[in-house]
C-alpha cells in the first residue's frame, strides 16, 4: 500500500493526505474523524489561503503554516524534562506520543491511544483547528478524578522536535467535589505544529487550577484549543503564559453551565522578534450567579504582534452574572503591534459585566523617576514591566508553579537584554 | 397618625421584624433606638415600601390608610418621607432637577399646582441657605461626590422641600459633626406641628438633645422591648443596651 506513497504536500492538502493514508489505523470513532475531515476540507487552515476570512481568526492568519512541509512524527531521543517541585505525577508526550519512560502517571491517567475518547464539548464543524485535531489525533492524556478526591498536582509536558505535526487530544474530568492542579508545559526544537485540543469538565463544587506555560520553539506553531464546562459551584482557574512560537494561538471556550460557577482565564503574553501570539477566549454564562474574571497582559517587543480577543456571553437565564475582563498591552518597540477585540454579548438584564482595554508604552515619568534614583534605564524598564505583569502572575497561588513562570519571564527578559 | 400593629417582615426568607406595635400620635416625635441588627433600618424601609422586604404579618395605618401594599411613590404622596441612612447616588441626574421633579410629583398628588423652574429655584435657594448648604449643591448630581455630611444634609433639604407628614430619619445623625447635627435637628424642629410626626432612628443620645422626642422605643431582635420618655435615651447612653435587651429576653 505504502509502496507508491505520493510526495508530501504542504498545508491543508498535506494534512488531508495524511488522514487518507491513516484511515483505519487511527484509534476511536472513525465516523467522527470522517466528519471532521469533511469539515476541515471545507474550511482549510484559517487565513491559510485566499477566500473569506473567519471573524474568529480576524487577526491571525496561518499562511506561513500553509507553506510548511511536515514529516510523520518520529520518536527522537531527548532529555527528560525537569520535574516540578511538589508534583509527584508527570505525564510526558514527545511529538504527541506518550513517553512512558519519562512519565510518572497518576492512578487516574489513561492514554487516548488506549482508550480514545473525543469528549462532548468540541466543535469540529465550527473550528477548523479542532477539525484538524479530530481528524488526526493519535494520542493524549485522559484524567478522571473521582468525586471528592484531591488529585494533587499533575504536570503535563509536551516536547516537539520538528519538522513534524502532532495533534494530541486531552480530556480532564473532575467529578463533583474533586480538585486538581494541572501544570501544562510546551517546549521543543525546530519547526513543528503542536495542535492540541483539550476538554475539561469541572463537576459540581469541583476545582481545577490550570497553569499553562507555552514556550514552543521560535520556529514552531503552537495552536491550542480548550473547551471547559464548569458545573454548579465549580471553579476553573486558569493562567496561560505565552512566550514561544512563531505563530501561537491559545483559544479557550469556557461555559459556566451550572449556577454559581466561576472561571478565571488570566494570561500574559511576552513576545519579541517577529512572533505572533493570539489569546482568544469565549466565556459563556449559561446559568445564574456565575462569575468570570480575566486579566490579560501583553508585553510586545521587536516586530511582534499580540492579539487578544475575549468575548463574554450572558444567556437569557444567566441573571446575576458578574463578568469582568481587562486587557492591557505595553508596546516596547516602534514596530510592535497589538490588536484587541473585547466583546460583550448580553441577553440577561440583571447582570454586571465590564471590560477594559489599554494599549500604550511604559510611562516615561516612571522611567525617569527610577533613573533619577540611580536605576539604569534597562533595569528601570525591567522593573516596570515586571510590575505590569505582577497583577496577572500573582493570581497563581502555587509557589513552585509561580516560580517556574517567573523564571520563564526572567528568561524572556534576559533574551531581550542580550 | 401612624398605627403599626403586629408588623413582621423578612428578607430572603430571613425574619427581621417579628411583631412591632407602635403608635405615633399626630405632632409627636418618637425615637427608635437599639443595637446593630435590631431591625431599625428595616422598619424604615418597610414603612417606605422597599420591595425586597416581604411583609409577613401586621398592618401600618397612616392617617386612616393602610400603607402596606402601596407603591413607594403613593406613600410619598401620602406624606411619608424616608431620610436614607446611605443616600443613593444618581449619576448624571442634576440635584435641582431631581428635587423639582419629586416636589412637583407630590404637589400634583396633593392637587397643588406645579412649580416652574424659577419658582422652584427661589424656594430651593432659600432652603439651602437656611440649611447652610453651599449653593452648588443644587447644581451637582444627586449625591454623586457628596461627602457623608453633604449627603445627610441633602436628605434634610429634600425633607424641607417636600414637607412630609411623617418623616422617618434613618441614622441621619451618623457621621455628622455637632454643627451639622444641629442643622438636622433644626430642620425637623422647623416642621414640627400638629400635622407632622417623626420617627427618628438613631444610635445616640446626641441628636435627641436637640430634637427632644415625646417617646423613646428600644428595638431588639425585631421587637420593641421597652418604651419610655426622653429620659430612657439618657439612661441608654449611660448603661447601654445590654441590660434592657437581657431583661427583655
Amino acid at each position, binding site marked *: 500500500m505504502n509502496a507508491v506513497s505520493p510526495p508530501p504536500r504542504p498545508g491543508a492538502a498535506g494534512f488531508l493526505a495524511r488522514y487518507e493514508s491513516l484511515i483505519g489505523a487511527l484509534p476511536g470513532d472513525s465516523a467522527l474523524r470522517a466528519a471532521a475531515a469533511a469539515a476541515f476540507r471545507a474550511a482549510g487552515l484559517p487565513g491559510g489561503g485566499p477566500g473569506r476570512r473567519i*471573524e474568529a481568526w480576524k487577526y491571525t492568519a496561518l499562511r506561513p503554516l500553509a507553506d510548511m512541509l511536515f514529516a510523520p512524527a518520529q520518536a527522537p531521543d531527548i532529555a527528560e524534562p525537569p520535574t516540578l517541585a511538589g508534583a509527584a505525577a508527570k505525564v510526558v508526550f514527545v511529538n504527541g506520543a506518550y513517553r512512558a519512560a519519562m512519565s510518572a502517571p497518576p492512578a487516574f491517567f489513561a492514554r487516548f491511544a488506549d482508550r480514545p475518547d473525543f469528549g462532548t464539548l468540541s466543535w469540529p464543524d465550527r473550528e477548523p483547528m479542532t477539525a484538524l485535531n479530530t481528524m488526526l489525533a493519535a494520542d493524549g492524556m485522559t484524567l478522571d478524578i473521582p468525586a471528592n478526591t484531591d488529585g494533587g498536582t499533575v504536570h503535563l509536558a509536551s516536547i516537539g522536535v520538528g519538522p513534524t505535526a502532532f495533534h494530541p487530544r486531552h480530556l480532564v474530568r473532575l467529578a463533583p467535589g474533586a480538585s486538581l492542579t494541572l501544570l501544562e508545559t510546551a517546549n521543543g526544537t525546530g519547526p513543528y505544529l503542536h495542535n492540541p485540543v483539550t476538554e475539561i469538565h469541572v463537576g459540581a463544587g469541583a476545582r481545577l487550577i490550570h497553569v499553562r506555560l507555552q514556550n514552543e520553539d521560535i520556529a514552531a506553531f503552537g495552536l491550542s484549543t480548550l473547551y471547559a464546562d464548569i458545573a454548579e459551584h465549580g471553579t476553573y482557574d486558569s493562567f496561560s503564559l505565552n512566550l514561544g512560537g512563531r505563530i501561537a494561538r491559545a483559544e479557550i471556550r469556557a461555559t459556566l453551565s451550572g449556577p454559581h460557577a466561576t472561571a478565571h482565564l488570566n494570561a500574559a503574553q511576552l513576545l519579541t522578534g517577529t512572533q505572533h501570539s493570539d489569546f482568544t477566549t469565549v466565556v459563556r454564562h449559561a446559568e445564574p450567579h456565575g462569575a468570570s474574571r480575566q486579566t490579560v497582559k501583553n508585553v510586545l517587543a521587536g516586530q511582534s504582534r499580540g492579539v487578544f480577543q475575549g468575548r463574554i456571553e450572558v444567556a*437569557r437565564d444567566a441573571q446575576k452574572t458578574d463578568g469582568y475582563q481587562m486587557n492591557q*498591552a505595553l*508596546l*516596547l*518597540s*516602534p514596530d*510592535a*503591534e*497589538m*490588536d*484587541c*477585540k*473585547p*466583546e*460583550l*454579548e*448580553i*441577553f*440577561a*438584564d*440583571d*447582570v*454586571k*459585566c*465590564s*471590560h*477594559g*482595554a*489599554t*494599549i*500604550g*508604552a511604559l510611562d516615561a515619568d516612571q522611567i525617569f523617576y527610577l533613573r533619577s534614583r540611580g536605576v539604569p534605564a534597562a533595569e528601570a524598564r525591567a522593573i516596570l514591566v515586571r510590575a505590569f505583569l505582577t497583577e496577572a502572575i500573582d493570581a497563581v497561588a502555587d509557589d513552585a508553579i509561580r516560580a517556574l513562570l517567573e523564571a520563564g519571564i526572567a528568561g524572556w527578559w534576559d533574551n531581550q537584554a542580550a | 397618625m401612624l398605627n403599626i400593629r403586629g408588623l413582621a417582615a423578612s428578607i430572603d426568607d430571613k425574619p427581621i421584624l417579628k411583631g412591632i406595635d407602635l403608635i405615633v400620635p399626630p405632632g409627636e416625635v418618637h425615637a427608635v433606638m437599639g443595637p446593630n441588627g435590631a431591625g431599625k433600618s428595616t422598619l424604615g424601609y418597610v414603612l*417606605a*415600601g422597599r*420591595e*425586597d422586604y416581604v411583609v409577613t404579618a401586621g398592618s401600618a395605618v397612616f392617617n386612616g390608610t393602610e400603607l402596606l401594599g402601596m*407603591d*413607594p*411613590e403613593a*406613600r*410619598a*404622596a401620602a406624606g411619608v418621607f*424616608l431620610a436614607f441612612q446611605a*443616600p*443613593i447616588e*444618581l*449619576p*448624571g*441626574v442634576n440635584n435641582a432637577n*431631581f428635587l423639582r*421633579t*419629586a*416636589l412637583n*410629583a*407630590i404637589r400634583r*398628588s396633593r392637587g397643588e399646582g406645579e412649580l416652574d423652574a424659577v419658582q422652584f429655584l427661589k424656594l430651593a435657594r432659600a432652603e439651602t441657605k437656611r440649611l447652610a448648604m453651599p449653593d452648588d449643591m443644587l447644581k451637582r*448630581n444627586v449625591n454623586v461626590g457628596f461627602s457623608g455630611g453633604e449627603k445627610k444634609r441633602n436628605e434634610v433639604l*429634600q425633607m424641607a422641600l*417636600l414637607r412630609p407628614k411623617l418623616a422617618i430619619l434613618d441614622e441621619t445623625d451618623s457621621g455628622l459633626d455637632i454643627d451639622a447635627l444641629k442643622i438636622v435637628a433644626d430642620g425637623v424642629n422647623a416642621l414640627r406641628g400638629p400635622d407632622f410626626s417623626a420617627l427618628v432612628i438613631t444610635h445616640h443620645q446626641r441628636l435627641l438633645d436637640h430634637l427632644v422626642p415625646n417617646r423613646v422605643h428600644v428595638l431588639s431582635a425585631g421587637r420593641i422591648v421597652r418604651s419610655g420618655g426622653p429620659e430612657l435615651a439618657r439612661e441608654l447612653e449611660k448603661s447601654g443596651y445590654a441590660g434592657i435587651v437581657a431583661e427583655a429576653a
Partner: protein
Amino acid sequence: MSVAAETLDAVQSVTESGYKWGFETNIEMDLAPKGLNEDIIRLISERKEEPSWMLDWRLKAYAAWLKMEEPEWARVDHPPIDYQDLHYYAAPKKKNGPKSLDEVDPELLKMYEKLGIPLKERAILAGVDPDEVEERQIAVDAVFDSVSVATTFQETLKKSGVIFCPISEAVRNHPDLVKQYIGSVVPIGDNYFAALNSAVFTDGSFVYIPKGVRCPMELSTYFRINARNTGQFERTLIIAEAGAHVSYLEGCTAPQRDENQLHAAVVELVAMDDASIKYSTVQNWYPGDADGKGGIYNFVTKRGACRGARSKISWTQVETGSAITWKYPSCVLLGEDSVGEFYSVAVTTNHQQADTGTKMIHIGKGSRSTVVSKGISAGRSNNTYRGLVRMAKTADNARNFTQCDSLLIGAACGAHTVPYIESRNPTAKVEHEATTSKIAEDQLFYCRQRGLSEEDAVNLIVNGFCKDVLKELPMEFAVEAQKLLAVSLEGSVG
C-alpha cells in the same frame, strides 16, 4: 417665544403612546417606475439636470454595486431586501421650483408643523424676511422623500460666503467643489450601501464654509420619507475650509407603514486646518410597531476627514428610531493634532435592532479622539455598539478614550459591545472601558420614595445615564432628544 421653547412645546404636545410622527402627507408625487438599472440612473440624473460627469460617476458606482454583496457582519437580521421593488425617485410635483414659499404645497407646510419644525423656520418658510428675525437663527433644508424642497436663510448665509443648498443645486451651481470632494471621503466602492447611494442619490444638503468663516447660524436639515415603496438616498457633503466652523443638525422622521422602507444615506465631511464641524443627529425614523412590523431600514455611511492640522470633527447622535440602524459615523484623523469625537445614545425597544458605533482612524501625529456611547435596550430589541480605534504607525502620541455603557431594561432584550482596537505605535495611548448593567433597584426606590412614578424615575435615571452625550447636543436638540428618550421608552418599564 424662543425657538427652544417652540421645539419643546411641539414635542410636548404629543402625549399618547406610539409613534407620533406617523402621519402621511397627501402630496402629488412624481414617481419613477420601480426598479434599479442604468436607465433609472439616467432618469434621476436627467431630472436633476446634472452634467455628464455626475452621470458617469453614478454609473461607475452602479457598476461597482452590482459586483458587491450585502454585508452580513452586523448583528441585524432582516428578510432579503428586493432592490428591484423600490422607487428610486419620488418627488413632490413641482409647479415651478420651490424657491418661493407660495409655490410650496400647503400640505407640505402642514407637515413641517406636525414634524415640530420650530415655528420660526415655518414663519420664514411663510415669507417673513429673515433679517427681521432676531434671536438665534437656524437655517433649514428640508428633504422630502428624494428632493430638497426648501432651504431657508440662503440669502443671509450668502452674505458671509457660506453655501447651504440642496446638493442637486450644488452639482449645477458649484460643480468644481462637488467634483473635488464628493466621494473623496466615502469612495463609491466603500461599501454596499454607499455604492448604492452613489448610484441613485437624489438629494441632500451641501455646505461650504469658506476660509476663516464661522457660520453665523446653526444649519439644519429635516429628512422625511413619505411616499410608499420608495427608498431615500440622500447625500450630504460639508466642507469647512481652513479656520472655518459650522454646526449642522439633522432630524429624521417617516410615516407609519406596514412595509419596511430603505434609507441609505451617505454623509461626507471635510475639515481643513483649524476647521471644526459639529454634526448632530436626532434620528427618529419610524421604528415599526410593537410586533416588529414595518419600520425603516437605516443603512447609513457617515465619515469625516480631518485633513488639516488641528481640525476637529464631532459627531453626536441620538438614535431612537428605525427598525434597523446600521451606521458608524467615523473620523479619519489625518491632520496633526486633529480631533475626532463620537457621542451616541441609541435606544431600542420592541423589535428594533441597532448596530452602531464609530471608527477612529488615527494617522496624524498627536491626533486625539473621544468615544462615548450609551446604549439602552428594552423590549425584545438588540442594541450593539461596534467600533474601531486604529493607531497607525505614524500616529505618534495619539490618544483615544472610549467609554461604552449599556443599560438593559427588561429580560427579553440584548446589549452587545464589539470594539476593535489596533495599535501600531508605542507612543499612542488607547483606553477603552465598557460596562453593562441595569437600573439599580436602590436608585429606583430612592426616586419613588421621593414621590416619582416608576416611569418618571426610569426616565430620570436614563437621562442621567445619557447626560454625557446629551450635553453635546445644541440646546434645541437636547430638549427634543430628552423627550424622545422618554417617549421611546414609554411602556418598557414594569
